Each structure stands twice: as structure tokens, then as C-alpha cells.
């Protein structure tokens, strides 16, 4: 990676942080006039701009500069925060994100509508009636205006015209010399159009110590005043387009004291208590993963040494191993802990989304977020954003009714949407709850029949819960109109699939007219899985516990062969039975039945014995082995044996 590439990725990572910080505080600012928020946004925009300049991402630099300027005005109390202003700022901040995406993909990050965006922000600057300092009205830096000295003698057309009236003092010895110096300096900055009395008269000194000059010049009024106010000048007037600007008479020989340092006491920035998210060190997640791997190896080898030591009975060795064991466990726990990040990382983005969707849909939503400090493993968190976003969109789009509908139904105009997270033993439970119209089971039933998913007869037999479950069916959507937010028919099924890939589950509870609650259950981490250790044909095998429904005795009398397949009848339920002979060899003594489930489909397998339940680290199969059907990975418990982990998904999905 070249140095520049390294800077680029650093740039992107840090810019995203700054962007998030801007959005977070913009939303905060919308609810309360927080000085901290203003300071934070200013600083983030400022940082972004500086970095962008270094990387020469001009579009980003310009946009952030404009945003910084706006916040400068807000910070100085010259601009009030309004709804309209917030909209402009949020649009700009969205654009920043889009530009970052473009830059990340190797683009220049210059959107076609950059000028509009910039102007949209700039129009706020100087509003509120109080203009910024003189800096804010500097003329635009024109391109290379021809050759230097262009203003003298041939002034560009349109340069303003001035009239100067100069009165020299009576004590002036050489009025002609004074006048000539003034005329010479005027020629340096403009074109003299006329001198009264005539120039030759002035140069001969035949004038009454007063002369007038007409000049075109683009050097500015101040330059002309400077020139007119010199030694032996009693008074001078500079008139621009009819406006008179008297110039105070100069003191004789204005010698500037050089020691006078031009110090304007710079205004100190307001000291603001900054609330920053905890920002410690940044470690690439892949490095944490390799560290985790090393810790896992350590765990495995500790197990092996313990086994070996057991055969030798050396007291000191055992003691030391105990100590090592404790350290390794602590290390492992610590590693897990390090990988945990608070859910606020993704929760923080949602208020913005809710606001936008609600505005677009004409709904009023009070969005409440709770439990943002609940921690989840980074790998789980990464996959969680999209499903949550989808559920939130659904809740506003389909759940919460329009204000007038709500009022008619006797509910408060404003709907409530609650997003909360909490820990339940090792698991994390995320709830998304709205007080909207709930799911109309009847509509779902009709739709399911319409789509040919079930027959009307079957439909009659289904419970309300089973009907609602159709929402998770691929291609199912009941939205009456297609919006760009939801209702495209890809949705809840994707949500469920995603959650399952994270080893989580989703439940829905809905009451018509009262609202809908989605409950997501997630394991705290994906690296460590609770498994049931079983033996099949004398060989060990691990089954993820979340796939195990129940364990029962295998009554061979209940085995029936239907269509060439063994099935078993367990408490009035007929389920296929797998012996996994092709994987483990025929077992002479299978006595136990394990019922497995994946996405509402059940299977059973026969095993010899159950060894127990334990937490293990699942490692993927090495590339040498490749993908093996039925096996999702291996785990190595303390004794050092390599144990395959059953991939229940592929077994259950088999027909």
C-alpha cells in the first residue's frame, strides 16, 4: 500500500467519524439549542475540511467549508437555527456521506450539483441582518487578469471613476513637486482622465495650491485616499460617482512608528465542555480477529497440556497449569469484551432516518431509543443495521397511522416508536415497538391465498400467529401502495435470513389497532457458540444449541418408512429421521433422538449418547478441506480432539 493509499483509508475512516458526529449533533440541535452541539459540528466540519484540503478533495473541502461558515455564524449568534436551515444542513451532510462513498470507491467526490449545495448553504451566511466581518465580503478571486500593470495606463472598461480635490498647505515650498508626486502615484493605480487646472499649469506651479483630478481606477477608495493624503496636503476630497468622501488632512510627514505592533486582541473561542464519545485506540477489526484466533489456539493448547500433565502427576506443573488456565480464561473473556461495542453505534443513525421517513410520509413520530449502551460483538453488530433499518421503516410506513387517522381512532396524533435493547442472560434482546394500527391478520390471510401460498381451506385452519408468520415469507408484501421506502416485497424475509445468519431469531407480536412489536434475540457474539456434544457411532460431534428443540429416547417402534425414508412419530408429529451414517458410519447403538429445527422445519437425528453442553469456539474449515456439506466448522475442546460442528441448516433443508 502506497503512502497515499494509507492516507486515503485513514482519511475515510476519520471523515466518517466526523460525519457521524455532525449528523448526531445536528439532530440534537433540532431538539434543543445546545452550544456543545454547535461547537462539535463546527469542529467536525473544520477537521473534515482540513483533511480534505490535504488530500485535495476539492468538492468535500468546499462543502465542509460552507458548513463551517454557517456554524461560525450560528456560534457567533448571528444566525438562528430554524427548521429550514436544518433541512439544508441535513441535505449537505447526506451529500458528505455520498461523497465519502465515492471517494472510498476511488472517485474524486465531486457531485454534479456541488454548486447548488454550496450555494444552498452560503445563502444562510449573512442572513439575520448582521453581516460578518469585512472578510466575508471579499471580492471573488478573479482569474488571471491579463498582464500586471493592466490598470495603468489602459484601465479595464468599467473601472469606477473618481474626482479628487486637493488643497495644499500655504507653507508648502514646492507645490508643483507635491502635485507631481501625487499625480505620479495616481498614475500607478489608475488612469488620469483630467487635471484642473491643466496638467502643464500644475507642473509649472502656476496654481493656487488647489487642484482637481479625475481618474478611473480599480484600486479602491482607500488607495486613492492614501495617495491624496501626503506631506503638505491641507485637505483632500475623494468623490466616487457623486458621493463625497472627505479625507482628514494629514499631519505633516506621517512617519509611521514601527514599534507599534498591530495587535488586535483575537477573540477567544468559547470554551465549551466537549462531550466526546469514548475514543481510545483504533484497531483494525481484522487484527482483533487474529488476536482472537491466537487466544483460541492458546485455549486449545492449554487443554492439551492439562491432559498431558494429568498423566505425570507433577504437583508444581499442575499448580502452574492452574494459574495459566486462569490467565487464559481471563484473556479470553477480555478479548470477547474488547470486541464488544455499544449498540448506540448503529442506534445513533436512526433518529435521522425516522425524521426523514416521517416527514415524507406525513406522519408524526416520537422516536424513543433505550439501551444504546448494551454491548454486542462487532461481528454481530455489522449485520444488524439493515434489518433494524427495515423494521423501523416498516413501523413508520405501515404501522403508525397518519395523524388524522390516529385522532379519529382516539389515539394521540403523534405515534410512538420505541427501539430498545437489553441484556437477557447472555443474549441481547432488541425490541422495536410501535403503537400503530397493528397487522391485519385478515389482509395477510387474503394475500397469502391470492399469492397461492396456501389454499383457502388451509388458511381457515391457521392460527393468527401462523398467519402473521407469512409476512416473513419471501416475496410477500401487503403494502397497499408501493413507496420508495417499503412495500417492495423484499423485506421481512430478508430480515429473518439475516438474523439467522447472525445466529439470532425474530418474533413478532401484533394486536390490531394497538400496534406491533418485533423482538430480536441475538447471541452476544458469533465467535463462541453454545453447543451440545453428542456421539454418533463413537465419534464426537457438536450441534449448535439454538438448533436443538428437544432430546428424546429413540423408540424404534415409532420408526416408519414413508417413501423410502425413515420417519419418526413423536407425540403425534411426523418428522424425517436422519442417521447421518454417510458422515459417521453406521452406529450399532443409537438410543437417543435429537430434534433439530431451522426456520420452522424440523428434522431428527439419532445419536448414541449426549455428552453435555459447552461453550466452544467454532473455527471454519481450512481452505485445504473446502466446504463440506453438513459441517459448518470444527471445534477443539480441552482434550485436543478435533470435533466437527453440524450444519443444521443444510441437513434440514435437504429434501
Amino acid at each position: 500500500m502506497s503512502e497515499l493509499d494509507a492516507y486515503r483509508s485513514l482519511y475515510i475512516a476519520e471523515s466518517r467519524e466526523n460525519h457521524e458526529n455532525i449528523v448526531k449533533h445536528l439532530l440534537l440541535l433540532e431538539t434543543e439549542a445546545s452550544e456543545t452541539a454547535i461547537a462539535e459540528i463546527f469542529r467536525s466540519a473544520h477537521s473534515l475540511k482540513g483533511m480534505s484540503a490535504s488530500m485535495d478533495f476539492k468538492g468535500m473541502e468546499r462543502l465542509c467549508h460552507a458548513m463551517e461558515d454557517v456554524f461560525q455564524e450560528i456560534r457567533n449568534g448571528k444566525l438562528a437555527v430554524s427548521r429550514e436551515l436544518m433541512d439544508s444542513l441535513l441535505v449537505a451532510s447526506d451529500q458528505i456521506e455520498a461523497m465519502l462513498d465515492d471517494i472510498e470507491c476511488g472517485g474524486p467526490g465531486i457531485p454534479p450539483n456541488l454548486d447548488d449545495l454550496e450555494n444552498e448553504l452560503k445563502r444562510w451566511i449573512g442572513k439575520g441582518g448582521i453581516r460578518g466581518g469585512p472578510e466575508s465580503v471579499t471580492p471573488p478571486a478573479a482569474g488571471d487578469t491579463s498582464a500586471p500593470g493592466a490598470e495603468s495606463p489602459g484601465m479595464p472598461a468599467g473601472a469606477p471613476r473618481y474626482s479628487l480635490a486637493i488643497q495644499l498647505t500655504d507653507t508648502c515650498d514646492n507645490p508643483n513637486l507635491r502635485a507631481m508626486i501625487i499625480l505620479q502615484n495616481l498614475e500607478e493605480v489608475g488612469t488620469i482622465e483630467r487635471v484642473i487646472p491643466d496638467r502643464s499649469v500644475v507642473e509649472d506651479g502656476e496654481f493656487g495650491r488647489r487642484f482637481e483630478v479625475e481618474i478611473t481606477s480599480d484600486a479602491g477608495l482607500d488607495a486613492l485616499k492614501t495617495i491624496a493624503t501626503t506631506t503638505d496636503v491641507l485637505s483632500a476630497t475623494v468623490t466616487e460617482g457623486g458621493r463625497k468622501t472627505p479625507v482628514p488632512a494629514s499631519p505633516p510627514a506621517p512617519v509611521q512608528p514601527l514599534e507599534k505592533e498591530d495587535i488586535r486582541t483575537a477573540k477567544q473561542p468559547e470554551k465549551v465542555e466537549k462531550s466526546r464519545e469514548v475514543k481510545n485506540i483504533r484497531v483494525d477489526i481484522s487484527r482483533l480477529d487474529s488476536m482472537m484466533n491466537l487466544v483460541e489456539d492458546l485455549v486449545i493448547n492449554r487443554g492439551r497440556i492439562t491432559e498431558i500433565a494429568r498423566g505425570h502427576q507433577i504437583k508444581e506443573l499442575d499448580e502452574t497449569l492452574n494459574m495459566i488456565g486462569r490467565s487464559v480464561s481471563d484473556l479470553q473473556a477480555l478479548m470477547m469484551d474488547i470486541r464488544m461495542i455499544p449498540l448506540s453505534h448503529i442506534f445513533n443513525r436512526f433518529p435521522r432516518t425516522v425524521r426523514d421517513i416521517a416527514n415524507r410520509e406525513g406522519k408524526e413520530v416520537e422516536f424513543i431509543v433505550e439501551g444504546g449502551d448494551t454491548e454486542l460483538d462487532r461481528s454481530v453488530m455489522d449485520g444488524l443495521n439493515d434489518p433494524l433499518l427495515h423494521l423501523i421503516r416498516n413501523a413508520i410506513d405501515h404501522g403508525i397511522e397518519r395523524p388524522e387517522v390516529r385522532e379519529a381512532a382516539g389515539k394521540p396524533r403523534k405515534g410512538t416508536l420505541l427501539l430498545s435493547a437489553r441484556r437477557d442472560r447472555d443474549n441481547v434482546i432488541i425490541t422495536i415497538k410501535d403503537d400503530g394500527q397493528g397487522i391485519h391478520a385478515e389482509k395477510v390471510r387474503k394475500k397469502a391465498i391470492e399469492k397461492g401460498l396456501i389454499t383457502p381451506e388451509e388458511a381457515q385452519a391457521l392460527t393468527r400467529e401462523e398467519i402473521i408468520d407469512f409476512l416473513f415469507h419471501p416475496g410477500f408484501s401487503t403494502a397497499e401502495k408501493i413507496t420508495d421506502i417499503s412495500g417492495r416485497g423484499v423485506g421481512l424475509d430478508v430480515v429473518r435470513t439475516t438474523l439467522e445468519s447472525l445466529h439470532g431469531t425474530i418474533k413478532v407480536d401484533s394486536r390490531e389497532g394497538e400496534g406491533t412489536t418485533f423482538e430480536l434475540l441475538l447471541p452476544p457474539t458469533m465467535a463462541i457458540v453454545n453447543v451440545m456434544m453428542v456421539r454418533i457411532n463413537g465419534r464426537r460431534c457438536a450441534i449448535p444449541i439454538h438448533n436443538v428443540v428437544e432430546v428424546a429416547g429413540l423408540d424404534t417402534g415409532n420408526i416408519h418408512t414413508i417413501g423410502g425414508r425413515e420417519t419418526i412419530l413423536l407425540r403425534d408429529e411426523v418428522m424425517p429421521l436422519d442417521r447421518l451414517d454417510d458422515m459417521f458410519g453406521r452406529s450399532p447403538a443409537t438410543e437417543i433422538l435429537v430434534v433439530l429445527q431451522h426456520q420452522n422445519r424440523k428434522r431428527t437425528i439419532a445419536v448414541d449418547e449426549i455428552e453435555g453442553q459447552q461453550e466452544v469456539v467454532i473455527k471454519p474449515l481450512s481452505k485445504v478441506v473446502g466446504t463440506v456439506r453438513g459441517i459448518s466448522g470444527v471445534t477443539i475442546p480441552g482434550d485436543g480432539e478435533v470435533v466437527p460442528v453440524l450444519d443444521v441448516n443444510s441437513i434440514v433443508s435437504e429434501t
Partner: protein
Amino acid sequence: MIRVLVVDDSLFMRTMIRDMLEKDPEIEVVATAIDGVDALKKINEYAPDVMTLDIEMPRMNGLEVLKSRSKAAAFPKVLMLSSLTSEGAEMTRAAMMLGADDFMLKPKDISAVRGIGKELIDKVHNLVSIAYVRRVEKPPEALADRLVVIGASAGGPPMLDVLLSSMDSPIPAAMVITQHMPEGGFTASLATRLNRISPMPVKETESGDVLLRGNVYISKGGYHTIIGAHVGENGMKGGRIIHSQSPPVHSVRPAVDRTFTSAATTFGDRTVSVILSGMGSDGGEGMAAIKQHGGKTIVCSEEDCLVYGMARSALSRNCVDKVIPLKQIGKEIARVVAGMVN
């Protein structure tokens, strides 16, 4: 070895600044700090020679760090890294007043300019090698009859350090330096810095300033510095600063060409002109005008310049008397000025 502490709240900036500095074998970045509080801690811990300091930082900003200066036992030399805004200029000025030793604009477009770190490295070296001067006596307030004009752009500021500090005594001429800088007040900070290390007093130009012998003037950003004619009360001829707001020339204001051409008209053959490092072509035409009026023309040799565009624009006009290394320019100016007898 120069031990440097890099202070910036942006990881990106810290990394970039550190990488730039470490390209120099004589510089060691001993630590980085993420804000003012961290910086004060690291100063005690590492006792660095030089500190690069960002202004906008959480918890404690750059200005507050400078205010804690007196409390610390040993404080490093401070190089402020400023952003290119008028707000940044104000902050820089405040920082210089609070005792920052020098400032530099944050690097722009690092991919386009090779060796952009050179300016930073040179500044760090200058901070430790160039001592502050104590001028005991003020130069007599006499109208200057000779003028030295210097033009510079990118890479110029550290060269001005070297040039001014290498002149061991005041020269019998006024010196006007036109250094391209964004407007807003950075040139005032540049003057403050140079005033501390130059044997001659240095100030930013004000419209109407009469050019005095043995004084140095830095063109104020945002205006062209026009050298106008002036005659003192005793009838002695000299020059005066006029700030013009006519449009930028070569997209810059102040433009070196405007200063040089007007100097040629006003001071004629009593003008010495020098071009240092700089991008673009500003200065060439002005230098040609000075040559035409009988003045002297000097250009710095290429190996001392970060960018050679401005120098090349003069060289291409065949108007350059001498091309000499930076270290000799101060002496050469003194020699040439002394040779222009009344």
C-alpha cells in the same frame, strides 16, 4: 537530533505530519498528542525541542496550551499549524501573540506537490537553529533612498527565515517582501515571526507607510503593494506604500509583479530584486521591469527552492544578474545595496 511532539486531534493529520517530519534524518517525532491536555502531559514526559500545534481541538485548544506556557518548566518551540481561513488567521495571530514561535499553513494537496514536507522540515530546523534577536537600538528614522524587493510564494516562509537571519546588520535600504499568502491576516503573523529573528524591524505594510531605511515591510495579504513616490519635508526622495484593491494578478493579491513594477518606476536603478521559491509565473515581468530601469536582479538557485516556477519565469526573460544559493543572498543584498552610493 531534533525531538518533535506532534499535537493534533485528527489522526489523519498526526500521521501525515509525523510521516513528513520523519523523512528528515535529523528529526525524531518522540510523541503525538490528541489535544491540549495530552500535549501538556507529553511535554513534561518527553521534553521535546519543538511542538507542532493544532488550534481547534477538544478539551483544550491550541491557544490554551500556549497560555499554560509559563507554568511549564521547559516549553518547546511552538510551530502552529493553521487552517486557511480568516478565522484561522485570527487564531494564528492570537497564537503568535501568546508566544507561538512560528506558524505554517496546513498542507494542501499532498499528492500534487512532491516534497511538500520540506517546508515543514525547514521550519522545524529554523526554529531550533535561528535564535531570537534583541535589537538594542532603533534605526534612525530616515527616508530610504534604496529599495530591496523580494518575491516568494510556496516554500518561501522558511527561506525568509534564513535570508533575514543571515543578514547580520541592518542595511541602508528599505526592504519590501511580497510573500503570497491567503488574505485574512496571515501576513501579520509572518511579520511577527520575522521581526523576532531579523536584525531589522519587520512589520506588515499599511497603506501610506513611508519606506524607512533599515526597515522590512511584509506585503499585507489581500492588497497589491504599490510602491508610490514620496518626497520628504527636506525634499528627499523616497517611497511610500499604497494598498491597491485592483483585481488579483496571476490569481494572487499581493502580486509580486505589481510590487516589482511599481518599485522599478519609483526607485529605478536603486532597486534590488530577489525571487525565491514559488509556484506560477508571478514576478518574472516585474523583475524584467526592474532590470530595464537599471536595478539589480537576483534569483535563488534551484536546489534551495521547493518550487522553481517564479524563478524560471524571470530566468526565461533573460533579466537575471545572478543565480546564487539561499545562504549567500543576504550578504549579496548587503553588498549590492552598499554599492549604490548616493
